[in-house]
């Protein structure tokens, strides 16, 4: 069984928002709602500035608070490590939304169920990468199987120092960030 993870090379993100739109169209995300977002943080004073670009999405945590809180088992962890939602079982109690430290869940207003990034589960089944990864212009998003030592993600996590978002909440995310800033050569 694969263990799917995403590695985000922040230095390569050029803030083009392609992932955001691709995700919305692939997954029919309603207007004004998002499964992924792009954050730009600029620190410093003119003319000495430094920018961190970062795309964020569901971390598919190993220890997912949204799954723990879910009263019906709608939010669950699959064997491949991804966190998924069984829409049938969702009662729309929103506990998972408040439980998520990463603000990545939302209620689909038309149907009422909680929703979020699925790592494009339907595409994975077809042997395709998630839509955001497939279209990532800067190749900042890299997706793959951590159980395969030869996969690009495994290599990247071996060879780079990485971090996860909000490690202090103990969720053990499966989205890893490398190269917080572009190299200054």
């Amino acid at each position, binding site marked *: 069984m694969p263990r799917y993870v995403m590695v985000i090379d922040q230095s390569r993100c050029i803030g083009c928002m392609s992932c955001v739109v691709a995700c919305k169209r692939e997954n029919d995300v309603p207007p004004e709602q998002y499964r992924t977002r792009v954050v730009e943080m600029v620190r410093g004073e003119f003319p000495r*500035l430094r920018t961190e670009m970062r795309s964020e999405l569901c971390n598919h945590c190993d220890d997912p608070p949204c799954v723990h809180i879910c009263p019906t088992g709608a939010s669950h962890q699959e064997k491949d490590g991804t966190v998924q939602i069984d829409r049938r079982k969702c009662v729309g109690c929103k506990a998972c939304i408040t439980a998520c430290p990463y603000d990545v869940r939302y209620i689909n207003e038309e149907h009422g169920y909680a929703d979020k990034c699925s790592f494009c589960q339907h595409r994975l*089944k*077809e*042997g395709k990468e998630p839509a955001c990864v497939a279209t990532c212009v800067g190749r900042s998003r890299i997706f793959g199987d951590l159980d395969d030592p030869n996969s690009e993600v495994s290599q990247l996590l071996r060879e780079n120092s990485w971090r996860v978002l909000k490690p202090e909440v103990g969720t053990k995310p499966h989205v890893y960030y490398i190269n917080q800033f572009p190299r200054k050569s």
Partner: protein
Amino acid sequence: MAFSRRNFLKLAAMSAGSTLIADTPFLSTRARAEAEGGNVRYVATSCEMCFWKCGVIAKVQKNKKGEDVVVKLEGNPFHPQSNGKLCARGQAGIGQLYDEDRLKKPMIRTGERGDGQYKEVSWEEALDYTVEKLKAVVDKYGPHAVAMMSHGSPGDYFTNLLMAMGSGNIAFPSFAQCKGIRDVAWELTFGHKPGSSCERVDLKNSKVIVLFGTHLGENMHNSQNQEFAEAVGRGAKIICVDPRYSTAAAKASLWLPIKPGTDMALLLTWINLIISNGWYDKEYVEQYTVGFEELKEAVKGYTVEWCAKETELHEADIIEAAKDLGRYAPNVMIHPGRHVAWYGDDTQRSRAMAIINAILGSWGREGGIWLPPKGKLAGFNDGIPEYPIPDEDPIIKGNYPFAGGEGLTQVVRDVTITGKPYPIKAWFVCGTNLMKSLPAPELTRKAIDSLDFIVAVDLLPTDTVMMADVILPECTYLERHDGLFKIETRETGVAIRQPAIEPMGESKPAWWIGSELCKRMGHPEYAVKDSSMDDLQAWEKRMRRQAKAWGIDFDKLADEGYITIPDSEAPYITPENQPVFKTPSKKIELFSSELDEKHFDPIPKYEKVEPPPEGMYRLVYGRSPVHTFSRTINDQWLWELQKENQVWLNTKEAARLGLKDNQYVVLENQDKVVSNKVLVKVTERIRQDCVYMVHGFGQNSKRLTRAYNKGADDQQLITRYKVDPITGGTGMRVNFVTIKEA
């Protein structure tokens, strides 16, 4: 190109239990649909959300009513402009397709020009009315009294119509308002444009990349940005010269926040540094260039101390950049840029950029500017007769000796207003929102008011469309054929545009509109062969004939969307692959004999630009990664990402003016033109002497329900422009504004 393929293979291999897509990771559209069980259709076509023409794969499914619906767009992995990826705009093409504000039926104006009152009519009526009005103009003033301005694919068909009628008054804003100036400058230097389908910049292999105002990341040309990110990821040195800390500056090793308008001082100083320190490629200069001694002499006076004062940059930074260029030459480049119509001296600035590339030997070198691909394709006109010679010379080049064949839109406008040397009384406006693309929009309006007749062919009711007498609704790129397109990247290739679904409403492909008008104007021999009112397949047949003439398998092209012309890739200079310079001297002209002949400076010189008056800021504008000028502003999926623009103002200036971040302000320019209210972004990311805003917002057309009245229009504030005497380009960064609370 290789990276995404490799990835895909791994994925295909590791996803157990799925339909394993064996050894060909990329499938043709037909094979792909079959692999997924046939409930879905994939159509390979070409994007037109901007003009990079990426290869697109449209996924089409039937909805509950049994209608075909485009559900997803993806980059075509075979196409070198997309490499399997699309930008945000490309992904949002569905938003344009299903925009409820789209023009659905032909319309004829019933009220006054600009008051927005129209009646919907049949195509028959609209075409007849158009022809009647055109004929009236032609009869009274001659065919040259009809002009056409266009951007994008529809232009071809109306160019054909006008040429058939005997008018050469055809102009594209992409020349004088954008990149034409740069093309001319590079032609004067190298005898080639710096690119056609894309700039021939070898970003992914470059060691030092210098960007002058080129805001990659915000100026989102797909493959170029892929390569830029690759360069950043590799750790290439990016030197970004820009008064604003752009996304590209954020990726740069060195950001040079230059005083606006002083780029030439920096360029000439760099040339001086590179020459005087011997950092240039001596062998290359010897072998391929002429005029080196004159250049050396001409730049002598441009010292670092002087430059630092002029540009307000640090001496150490100026030297560091030049040193790095020298150290890593020839695997370095000064990016030629794209929109270069800044200050009216733009040909010379572009020349200076070309010259640095030349003396560093980057033309034809890895990491520099790659050589044009080989693989010529024969001309194809489907056997139409030669166009008649216009009885009056076209006025589109004005009095600018180096104006290009794309023409000068502002000259067409001026002639329309003055009637000299002859009257222009009818306009075709195809796929361009002139009110938002030409400087001094009040003159555009004045010209439109003086016309007898104006036709607009477009997708959406833009400001300009809503001034037309007749509106002819074009269908989007996802509903029509266009092409075949010759794509020149490192290789030569051919791409196709073909409909993913039938045109919505009564919209029609531009080729059909042009062809029907040709027939009705009495020039059926220039119409698309075997076309008729109710046949939208005639263009496909023409494409087949074209493919045959080019020796290309049309069915394969239609299936895969892009075909490479074999052995066309020869990017770098080798003993066997020697560059050809189409200049008078057959060499790189550091000293331009052509400019000299026309009494222009043969080597660029520094001239000061007018500084902002006390208390005013220079207005600088640019692009957003999610919008193409004003064309995409109403697209639902892009609109929601950026509903209005902001004006960037330095923190210190904001404090002085008592303005807070994200409050509404208005701008007033030197001619007392006041903008729409606009949010101010108080930021450290810009110099104190200028303000910046994204172009394309502040739509005046109420029929654009999402975009109407959102944000401010920079073009409205660009009431002045400085014309480049060499090419006729319109320098637009010569306007100044004040800011106050809204």
